[in-house]
């Protein structure tokens, strides 16, 4: 159990903080697939949850953690528990992470957020991933198949190099459909183009989605139109990942029918698609719907 130090979190809290040693890193198309030693984390994690990584080391000017869906976990083994993530280099933090070398150490907090809810009955399910959004779905597929669900996957991306896990998908699902915007692999077009047919063919009761917001909205629309429930994992900009900063909020309709600005890091990242107020998102901004609880009133503040 070398290569990892566990820091103070409280027993039973469901979350650990560890200094995880990077033991494997490989390029997969446009992404980097990293494996960290993270004892204690694997046992707690479920598909749809995420981890928050500190970036930049001791001299870092980047104070905020970066969040990544858990791609998979191995509760035990040679290293005493590992966690895998799939990272796209984007800004300074993800660039730093993708440039790490074996044996480098990273401070990891997780598992965080709510997992994908699993159906009680063995119903057919469709899992839709956009880009690296497919990362958490293979593990989910396994959990669903363990419960006897028929599982199909739809993977989409702008181009072939931005697809993640097509080969893995064939192993984990009973059927796989691939789309790319440029037609470099699979059907040319969007996942929403092929999704209605897959839902109808499989008789899916649940559609799970992970990917860009626009895609999640259209998955929700399609699922709803086809009579299925959408469960989507959103990606909002997060400063803390643990529920204390209120930066990651989005308007979601509660059981009481009222819209509230809820924290996607603790009440999400998985939401029922039809509860999300997609109408509030436009042009990179999300406004507070006028009917939200505590929304600014005209003349107020």
């Amino acid at each position: 159990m070398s290569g990892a130090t566990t820091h103070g979190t409280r027993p039973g809290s469901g979350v650990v903080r560890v200094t995880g040693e990077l033991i494997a890193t490989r390029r997969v198309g446009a992404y980097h697939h990293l494996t960290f030693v993270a004892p204690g984390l694997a046992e707690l994690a479920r598909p749809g949850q995420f981890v928050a990584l500190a970036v930049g080391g001791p001299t870092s000017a980047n104070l905020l953690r970066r969040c990544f869906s858990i791609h998979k976990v191995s509760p035990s083994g040679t290293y005493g528990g590992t966690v895998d993530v799939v990272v796209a280099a984007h800004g300074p933090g993800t660039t730093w992470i993708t440039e790490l070398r074996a044996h480098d150490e990273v401070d990891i907090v997780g598992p965080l957020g709510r997992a994908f809810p699993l159906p009680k009955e063995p119903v057919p399910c469709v899992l839709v991933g956009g880009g690296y959004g497919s990362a958490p779905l293979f593990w989910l597929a396994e959990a669903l198949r363990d419960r006897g669900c028929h599982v199909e996957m739809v993977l989409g991306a702008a181009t072939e190099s931005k697809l993640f896990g097509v080969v893995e998908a064939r192993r984990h699902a009973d059927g796989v459909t691939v789309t790319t915007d440029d037609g470099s692999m699979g059907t040319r077009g969007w996942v929403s183009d092929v999704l209605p047919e897959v839902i109808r063919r499989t008789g899916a009761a649940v559609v799970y989605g992970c990917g860009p917001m626009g895609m999640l909205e259209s998955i929700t629309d399609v699922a709803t139109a086809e009579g299925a429930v959408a469960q989507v994992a959103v990606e909002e900009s997060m400063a803390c990942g643990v529920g204390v900063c209120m930066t990651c909020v989005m308007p979601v309709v509660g059981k009481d029918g009222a819209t509230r600005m809820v924290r996607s890091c603790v009440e999400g990242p998985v939401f029922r698609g039809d509860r999300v107020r997609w109408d509030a998102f436009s042009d990179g901004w999300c406004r507070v719907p006028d009917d939200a609880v505590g929304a600014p009133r005209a003349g107020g503040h």
Partner: protein
Amino acid sequence: MTLTSADTVAATTATSVDMSVDLAGRHLPSPMMTASGCAANGRELGRFFDVAELGAFVTKSVMADPRSGRGTPRMAETPSGMLNSIGLQGPGISAFVEHDLAWLKQAGARTLVSVAGGTSGEFADVAATLRASDAFDSVVGVEVNISCPNVANRGLVFACDPLASAKVIALVREQLPRDVPVFAKLTPDVTDIVSVAQACVKAGANGLTMINTLLGMVIDTDLLRPQVAGVTGGLSGPAVRPVAVRAVWQTRAAMLEGRLPYVPIIGVGGVRTGRDALELVAAGASAVQVGTATFNDPSAPVRVGRELAGLVQDKGFTRLADVVGIAHERLARA
């Protein structure tokens, strides 16, 4: 984390230093606190440490009614800091006392409740509801966040105006029993922070918390527009620490010069390690809040306390109280 080896040693050594503070009449076992808005209302950080370990848990500023806050994006990362524009999202004081304060009480926390308002009357109403609540006996003080926009004055922040600040403090002070200290939380975005401190103390503030965030802004260089939906936001984190140290220093200096009555100062701004906390203490702070650093390390408020105790001990002191404001003495002697 920027931990030097000295800090690490400190962090792992049990110390025999007396870290307790007498804060405007309230005895706290530790100088460490969360910072308002950086710790939610307790449950979330309770997963990482026992909230009763803190000197006090400082809650998110609460207003009279539930508030949705602003749209998103609400934040931008900046060099060694961040910009936020939350818009005081919260449940409103009634739900706060019923759910949050009650939870903090049963968890054994000493709570410093942060209150806010769009008018001075709203501040008073919030304080009145707080006082009337069941869990009020767990409250060790009220922090008045006067760095919020004054509806009556074109949204100008109360704390930018000594008169407006004094009015809010006086009204809140009136609502609360004498043994519950009131702390005025000041903004550094003023020409003369000492004059605002003077107005607040004169109006009845029993202590000062400084600093709130600096007004800042980030442009999204891809979209060429403001990055946060609120256009401007509050700058926090280690980047602003030298401004916090300066504000504490100036205010303490004014007390030493007799220009300001002596009241305790709670230092906040950019604290990430025991060393950072020690800067604020040596400049004059009796207690220290940890805000943004909590986003990097959820257990920072208690870790910093351990590191601070270790440093104080290493320097040969037996009581934290003896280090408060010590840099003024050492400068005078030089």
